[in-house]
């Protein structure tokens, strides 16, 4: 019998349809193509090719090296075709019944390694450097009053929307409005808090630690789970065990622990499903520039909990999902968690 499960945070329903279940290796579309490993001479993200990109915004550099030259570990550049631009003015206006504004914001690309490597080849130390750069960029963007929210994400593999380049990278987008999906999640967390006086994510962590069957992996400070109402096969959330609403305020001392867990779960997942396309998306609280503001933000420090979502692209999202916001997942998250948990992943 298929099961309908409801996401406790935003109320989205998911059909866990075991009758359509497939073995983990039978999910069709998602194989990242191996053959296209182009040489590094033409890759604009490789060390030595800095002149092929717009001038850098920020970089983690070895002492004595110059901006836009070699000698960096992680480099941040403006997106080549930015969706939103820092220079624009916002100019909100209406057109009849519609609202419009200019595309003011930030769109940056984080080049995660100077070498011509893919995500799967990065060491724990390198991932730690990248995460520290993300924290630095978010702290900097907080100072721009026009930016309300910062989205950090990675598209891996063409099926997940990544371009054809091989080089490991991720993106940051600072938006001038609060985003609909973010608002939904915030509203869901707030209403749970109002009712129970507890953070819903903390409650989920407690229940998952007790049940155990949806745990994928854990480290000292972080937990990786297959959520109860997973929309996609092998969907995984990574969440700090201790309550915190802002990712960018994470203690620097915990970044290596986080990076190690991230590396571990991807290594384990690849053992089970091979090299798979995915989107990795950070969910964190919006910037709050007036502290102690009443109303909407009043309890956000206590009711919201940052986390990462890993969304593997193994099934196609079809008309039904788009029209209904109702997902069909052929693999129960308990089965997904078990196979990933038991896979022997690489150690750092």
């Amino acid at each position, binding site marked *: *019998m*298929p*099961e*309908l*499960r*409801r996401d*406790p945070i935003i109320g*989205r*329903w998911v*059909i*866990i349809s075991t*009758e359509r279940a497939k073995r983990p290796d039978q999910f069709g579309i998602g194989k990242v193509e191996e053959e296209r490993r182009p040489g590094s001479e033409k890759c604009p993200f490789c060390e030595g090719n800095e002149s092929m990109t717009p001038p850098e915004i920020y970089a983690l550099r070895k002492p004595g090296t110059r901006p836009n030259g070699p000698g960096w570990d992680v480099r941040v550049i403006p997106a080549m*075709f930015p*969706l*939103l*631009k820092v220079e624009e003015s916002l100019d909100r206006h209406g*057109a*009849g*019944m*519609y*609202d*419009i*504004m*200019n*595309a003011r914001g930030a769109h940056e690309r984080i080049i995660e390694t100077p070498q011509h490597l893919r995500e799967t080849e990065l060491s724990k130390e390198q991932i730690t450097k990248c995460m520290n750069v993300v924290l630095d960029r978010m702290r900097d963007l907080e100072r721009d009053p026009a930016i309300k929210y910062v*989205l950090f*994400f990675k*598209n891996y593999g063409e*099926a*997940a*929307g*990544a371009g054809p380049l091989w080089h490991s990278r991720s993106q940051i987008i600072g*938006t*001038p*409005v609060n*985003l*609909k*999906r*973010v608002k*939904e999640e915030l509203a869901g967390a707030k209403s749970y808090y109002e009712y129970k006086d507890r953070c819903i994510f903390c409650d*989920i962590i407690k*229940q998952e630690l007790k049940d155990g069957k949806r745990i994928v992996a854990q480290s000292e400070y972080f937990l990786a789970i297959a959520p*109860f109402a997973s929309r996609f096969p092998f969907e995984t959330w990574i969440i700090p065990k201790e309550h915190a609403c802002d990712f960018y305020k994470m203690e620097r001392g915990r970044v290596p622990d986080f990076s190690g867990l991230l590396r571990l779960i991807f290594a384990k997942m690849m053992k089970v499903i091979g090299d798979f396309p995915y*989107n*990795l*998306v950070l*969910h964190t609280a919006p910037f709050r520039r007036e502290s102690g503001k009443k109303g909407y933000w009043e309890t956000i420090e206590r009711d919201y909990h940052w986390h990462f*979502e890993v*969304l593997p692209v193994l099934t*196609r*999202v*079809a*008309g*039904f999902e*788009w*029209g*209904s*916001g*109702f997902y*069909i997942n052929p693999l129960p998250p308990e089965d997904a968690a078990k196979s990933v948990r038991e896979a022997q992943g690489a150690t750092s």
Partner: protein
Amino acid sequence: MNELRRDPITGRWIIVFLDKIPAVSDFKVEPHAKKKEGCPFCWGSESFTPPEIIAHRKYGAPNTPNWTVRVVPNKFPALRIEGELNKEGIGIFDMMNGIGAHEVIVDSPDHFRDMADLKCPEIEEVVWAYLARSMDLRGDKRFKYILIFKNYGKSAGASLEHPHSQLIALPVVPKRVIEELHGAERYYDYRQRCVFCDMIRQDKEEKSRIIYEDERFIAFCPYVSRFSYEVWVLPKNHRSDFANMPRDHVPGFARAMKNALARIKTLLSDPSYNFIIHTSPINGHEREDYHWHVEIMPKLSKVAGFEWGSGFYINPVPPDVAAKNLLSVKVEEK
């Protein structure tokens, strides 16, 4: 300069490209496999599907050839028709049994012609099947919503190539529908007008986004299109419930659908697409604040991490450019 536009119904934002608009030829369209052998939806293969629920045929017995449109239960249903809901909670999680109906409407016996290639009277038969199944299923008290949609082409999620549509009856009202209903209700409370009627009015004044219009139906590229070449088809007069469509409106609706789908197919070289009929939940009365419509979404770009995380869509083709291009191609009218 790119522009941010806000959907007046759901409040979602989209980014429209205004400086770097891709040409029609920039979209890569995957070829559709065309293999008739072993297709369970062709004449003569009736025994490969579960027994039919309804069909149109001039002569002959059920589950034999000579039908023109045929409705069968989905062989691999996402939801099952038999059983009770048994709602329960597990700690903080809620669940219930997956009860519902999942049916397949085989649009025509022709393996090689999609809805865009059918004649208007053939599309009318498909619409007839949609309406007949909707009316029948709304008698079942367990169901709250009936979703009718079509996936055409592999990248739109179609697993069988023979052109078909699907119907799913659900025991809960899905989230996107609730969002849309709430948005429309809020707009109505404030202005005492239907937001969709207002959209039709504004589009008729501005003209630049309309691709089809007759006495009863209109098709346009919405101002806040999430996808390149997205097209909506709506009845011009206010109606909230698709299943209550007066029978003499069916030919007009078939004509509008044919026109919109044929323009998309001709201009964009037969892309994969989804269409979804948005209608009010099952409750038996017409609502003043909601307006049924069809959303057609060609699959031309992939939805990536940004869209997932934000509910914020990037559309590289401004809708007035899309409409102009769609109008530039010649299509068969009937």
